[in-house]
């Protein structure tokens, strides 16, 4: 995975391009225990104490990872990543919903991997607030995706209420 790339981050709900300083770690050999690393869930689970001692860290989940297993880290991490190996693999959307609703994760939730412009609107709706666009794509051009629709037909993480509970439905 790429480091130090520009990414899109919601700031007070507004998508902005920011420079990223998190390092994505794929395996134990890549991590020396220093802060600023985003660790695979399995690695974090295997080195719980080291993670808690490392300062600013994050973890990332693969599509099949159960988000419930990440909940024990919430107090000691600053970021959760959800990896999309292919943009057509939709499991990460449910992972995000569960992290935000069932498990109550309030920190940064980042979409990683094959993250493309045409998925940004839905990714935001299920609770992602940062988006590491695939490295060959221009995040500036992708920003327009957040304005695709002016409203939504159903509640999810954002917004949580369906239109008929928000008074959006004009009779």
């Amino acid at each position, binding site marked *: 995975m790429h480091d130090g790339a520009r990414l899109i981050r919601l700031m007070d709900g507004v998508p902005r391009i920011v420079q990223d300083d998190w390092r994505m770690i794929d395996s134990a050999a890549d991590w020396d225990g220093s802060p600023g690393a985003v660790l695979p869930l399995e690695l974090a689970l295997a080195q719980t104490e080291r993670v808690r001692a490392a300062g600013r860290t994050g973890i990332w989940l693969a599509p099949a990872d159960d988000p419930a297993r990440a909940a024990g880290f919430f107090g000691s991490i600053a970021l959760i990543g959800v990896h999309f190996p292919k943009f057509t693999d939709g499991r990460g959307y449910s*992972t995000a919903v569960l992290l935000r609703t069932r498990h109550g994760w309030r920190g940064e939730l980042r979409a990683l991997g094959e993250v493309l412009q*045409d998925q940004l609107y839905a990714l935001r709706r299920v609770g992602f607030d940062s988006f590491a666009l695939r490295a060959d794509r221009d995040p500036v051009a992708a920003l327009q995706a957040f304005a695709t*629709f002016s409203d939504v*037909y159903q509640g*999810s993480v954002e917004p949580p209420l369906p239109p008929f509970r928000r008074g959006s439905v004009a009779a």
Partner: protein
Amino acid sequence: MYRYTDFDQRMVNERVAQFRDQVARWKSGALSDDELRPLRLQNGLYVQRHAPMLRVAIPYGLLASQQLRALARIARTWDRGYGHFSTRQNIQFNWMKIEEVPDVLDALAAVQMHAIQTSGNCVRNITSDPFAGVAPDEAVDPRPYCELMRQWSTFHPEFSFLPRKFKVAFSACATEDRAATAMHDLGFYLRRDASGAVVADVVAGGGMGRTPVVGSIVRTGLAWRHLPTYTEALLRVYNRYGRRDNMYKARIKILVRALGVSAFAAEVDEEFAFLENGPGTATDAELARIGADFAPPPYRILEAEPAVLKEQIATDPGFARWYGRTVRKHRVAGYAAVTLSLKRSGIAPGDASAATLDALAQLAERFSFGELRVTHEQNVVLADVAEHELYDLWTAARPLGLATPNLGLLTDMICCPGGDFCALANAKSIPIAQAIQDRFDDLDYLHDLGEISLNISGCINSCGHHHVGNIGILGVDKQGAEFYQVTLGGVIGPDPARTAIGGVIGRAFAAAEVPAVVATILDIYVALRDPGERFIDTLSRVGLAPFKSAVYPIDQPAELENA
């Protein structure tokens, strides 16, 4: 029918703008073919054998006359002058240009139509009973519930990239399932509980394709207001645990079977427990808002079975035959629901020319409050015809070729577009349908045979629903040649327990053999039937054996080879 609010119109318009931009980015090279594919599929656009095919949603089968006219205009302007009604209450245009599709979607949006989620691995167009709202035997009008769920499923952010397609159907009639509900990924049998409240028995894991499965009941008596949240729970379980390694094993039916029905249902219940009575729960006010659009049309006070109708039936045998075959009882006295057959010799089942679409619009306006329904059997229904005008309707429909009295009979075949159009097909299906129509064109014989369903699919994807035809015909590829496998005994029952998938009778046939094979099967039926016994009932009484031995008199080894 449901009329778009400003909100709905805005959402559909924004969808068209989104797709226009996606097509432009694809043309410029900014989007790859692979990246565009799921996006265009979720706007109904397939790349087919000859040209891209656009599948337009007809939500739960309802069409207004101005929508029919728009479809006719689309057929003329952007296609080759006709459309094809599919088996899932959609209409397909076979000769589209990708670059022009955004304009077609604009033309659809102008009449409150769209092609949203008619393909792709998402929640597809929701289907239902074409006699909804007028059938005397329904427990409740399913259409407001269908619309509630159509809206809920539209652009659902969590479920746009499911393991595979996801089809939903509603039925609300205890004695007959006119939506093939048990053959869907998710189905709702609506009924009233002892207190009169509307509840759903939920069936999941049905489907056709190469592994045909009749769905299983996973929940009974679900209060209607939980339809969105229960579906969310079920889809979340499927989205997380459905197989993604093999597209042939990715439908929910495979997950339900792998876990077992009760374990699957328990998983869904566990998820639902977190959502039950939460903010996604539907409200009485929202159902009432939607339901207002399904208020009955301004029926007149009419005499039931007026004398003039009785006299017309008594004096005109052609009318009497059509009346007996295509006219159904209506919940309002003096009205009837009429099915216009789109099956006649020389026309591919489900095909309708632009002129036919315009003519249907005119018939709907003249006879049925400007509305019409399409059926999963690929016919169209005028649901609110005054009985004293039935003769006029018959007179007007006959020259249009829309009054063939073959509804429910052998030649009322379900048939997919097949190898003539579809890139997936192994074999052509339309010429088989034509050959059968040509061989069995004697209406007296057809009426004597009575109710029998014959369904044809050009490949195992089963768009022609061959698995549930009393007689099913499936196109298969044998060393590059087109052959046809025959199944017997498929049937759509009122519930999963009475729904069955047909059994293969033996080796496949060359195209030219198929009409004679069908004839042999019918001869055996006629020879063995008890008076008044339907084909499917004779078959279930005597079993497959007599049919097999008549169709394969000498080649038992060949039969074993394919057993």
